[in-house]
């Protein structure tokens, strides 16, 4: 079952920007695109764990700030010739607030 947790106002994340969510085990990053879609991913590139929250967001992609891997915000898959994937989490915006489905996060913690 989904557990929607309010993590803050949409406006707290800049367009084409991201903010970190401290989470048990591993930090997540919540991204906002130019057209106000939001995505939540583990904040670490599959290659050498670069903090994706600091990458340049273009369309629904983010470029790893350390090694320029391009990661899909929607699927977490690395694009192009690179292979790898980061976990993604359901997130949505309601009434200007960002809601994150935290069920799988806490499960991971419990496991």
């Amino acid at each position: 079952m989904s557990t929607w947790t309010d993590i803050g106002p949409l406006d707290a994340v800049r367009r084409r920007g991201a903010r970190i969510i401290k989470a048990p085990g591993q930090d997540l990053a919540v991204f906002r695109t130019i057209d106000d879609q939001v995505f939540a991913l583990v904040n670490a590139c599959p290659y050498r764990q670069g903090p994706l929250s600091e990458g340049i967001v273009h369309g629904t992609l983010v470029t790893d700030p350390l090694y320029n891997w391009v990661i899909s915000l929607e699927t977490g898959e690395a694009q192009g010739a690179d292979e790898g994937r980061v976990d993604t989490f359901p997130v949505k915006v309601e009434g200007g607030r960002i809601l994150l489905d935290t069920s799988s996060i806490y499960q991971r913690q419990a496991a």
Partner: protein
Amino acid sequence: MTQKLVIIGAGMAAGRVLDHLTDAGGDWDITLFNAEPRGTYNRIMLSPVLSGEKTFDEIVTHDDAWYADKGVATKFGVKVTEIDSAAQIVRGDDGSETAYDKLVFATGSNPFIIPMPGHDLDGVVAYRDLEDTEAMMALTEGQKAVVIGGGLLGLEAAAGMAARGVDVTVVHLMGHLMERQLDEPAGYLLRKALVDKGITVKCSANSKQILGENGKVKALQLDDGTELPCDLLCMAVGIRPSIALAQENGLAVGRGIHVDDQMRTSVENIYAVGECVEHNGDIFGLVAPLFDQAKVLAKVLQGEEAEFVNREVSTKLKVTGCDLFSAGDFADGDDREDIVFRDPARGVYKRLVLKEDKIIGAVMYGDTADGNWFYGMIKDGTDVSEMRDTLIFGPAYQGGTAEDPLSAVAALPDDAEICGCNGVCKGDIVKAINAGATDLGAIKATTKASASCGTCSGLVEQVLAVTLGDDFVMPTAEPMCGCTDLTHEDVRLLIKSKELKSMPAVMQELGWKTSCGCHVCRPALNYYLLADWPEDYIDDPQSRFINERKHANIQKDGTYSVVPRMFGGMTTPDELRAIADAADKYNVPTVHVTGGQRIDLLGVKGEDLPAIWKDLNDAGMVSGHAYAKGLRTVKTCVGKDHCRFGTQDSTGLGIKLEKALWGSWTPHKVKLAVSGCPRNCAEATCKDIGVVCVDSGYQIGVAGAAGMDVKETERLADVATEQEVMDLATAFMQIYRENAKYLDRPYKWVAKVGLDWVKEQIVDNVEERNALIERFKISQKIYQKDPWAEEAADKADQYEPIANLVLEAAE
């Protein structure tokens, strides 16, 4: 048996219901209430009335004669205030009671008025009805109006008033106009068209309050303090379904009045239609689905079967000269594919969004002729895989030619300057080509175009290609990135010659193949724009690499390094103490002395950055920009004050240089040094700019390197005074800033243009040198500021996590 039908509201939906009912010839005794003192008119045509293209009479769809003819009893100017659904009676504010068998709510929507201070002043209007329109029409030439809201209504209001000679400013909260219907590139073109009509457009602008005088509106104040004086203020920020009457009388409502597929409300014998309804969670703002509802309701009232199904809507803006079209869903997504077409010459932008071989969204600007064709395919879910390659050219063009990468150059007028150094225009080059100069070498020889700095050679080749067609074989030049076929050099030149001052402007006018660029072109464009148009362009942090966005160097473990500036490599005991205190306080694991004579605190956590900056700021230090593609350090030796070999005040000069140059952004990092004598303790001969002091004055070298490549500086000039050193160093910075390709260090750039050319410009040509210095100063007025102070003061929260789920999990 005659049934009594009462309709509340005589708007467009009610008008359509009446058309259907009276056509069907049913046996009805109809009473029509309307709060507005008139019957149905074509509300959407208020805009042409406002602009003077139509009169109000021309847009009335149902006049008194029509109602009389159809036997509809009208109560115009009467507002229904109460409903007794048990007795089936409505009461009006004229005290009347009217009985019904069937009742229809067609109350439409109310304009939303932001309850900011001053919203109730005289002269503040919405844009909904004839009264609002007349208030705007009463303005006379030269008066001022402000429109809050850059959506469909706001822009039609603005354009209508502007057409009457009113001085109009549009204030829009979002980053681009009509953001619900348009993407950024189309928003850019729209803005440009409105600006051409003399309308001032302010995006990303937040209104704070409306100022008045004697109860009448005087100005709008924005939250940055700007005041926009006005005689009238129109608020067009959205609409809300008009549900109060329904709610007070017990109908189920959400955002609108709840209806089922037959337009029935929760109360027996009461129906609703138009913008006041909510159907399956959807509310409405355009007439097409409302007319569908009206048709369904008329059938249901007649006892026939019908159901309302909501459909995709498409939007057009009714402003002459602004041709736009938008339909469906055009959000980015990577299960989606974009097809983008731009024709810079005609100001055309078209974008189709495809998902699983179907068009799901379309945005077009400038040429919307095919809009309805695409819209039809969106509605029908047509499989477009067969025509994918030619789809964007529309139905007439199936099998047509592919987009021409040369169109940007082809579109340049003959007097567009191609070679800035030698003042050669496109027309001169075309003339030379026609006279037999058919390659770059020949053009150089006959026109001198690209014979100096050479950065325009790509453009000259494109002119050759456009003029000669297939006879010219284009040498392959490396395009900037996958978004364009143009090289960095081409883009830089076109930004200048076409005066492109924003990222959407560059992408549109130069025919970018993507809707908003990628991580390769965006940082480069951001740099080119801020370097060329410091006063017009607004720096976009989201287009910068992490280090420049966070004003610190990211380390491979995701922590940051912090380096305070020490002008000329000089420091004091107080500064050192403050640095030591900061290192202790923030548990800095590593403290290192850099090659550029600075102290580097390594391993600072991202969220501690604003706090550590604040501490260092308080001790009088500013950012060392150790992360910037900009001026890094000026390294010095101690010079003649202390050293027995010293010939000049090398530290003093180093400090002066650094004070003048810090804060400036450059294509790549720039490092300087000043050595007090030819023994060169400051290693000035491998810097981007290096000064070696000698008895007779100063030797200025440029274009050195000591990285992957090692290269000695080349001598720019020998001069006698410090002032000359300052002037030449500043002019060199600026000429490099204005001409080099992003991420070329000075030595790479000088290798391309040749030191001789640089000397001609800044050593021999004093006028040009002074002009460069002047432009550098203008840029410094804007960019020489300490980013730490700014970020720590108002953006500190961005450095912290938005939420902490670890704590919650523990609870």
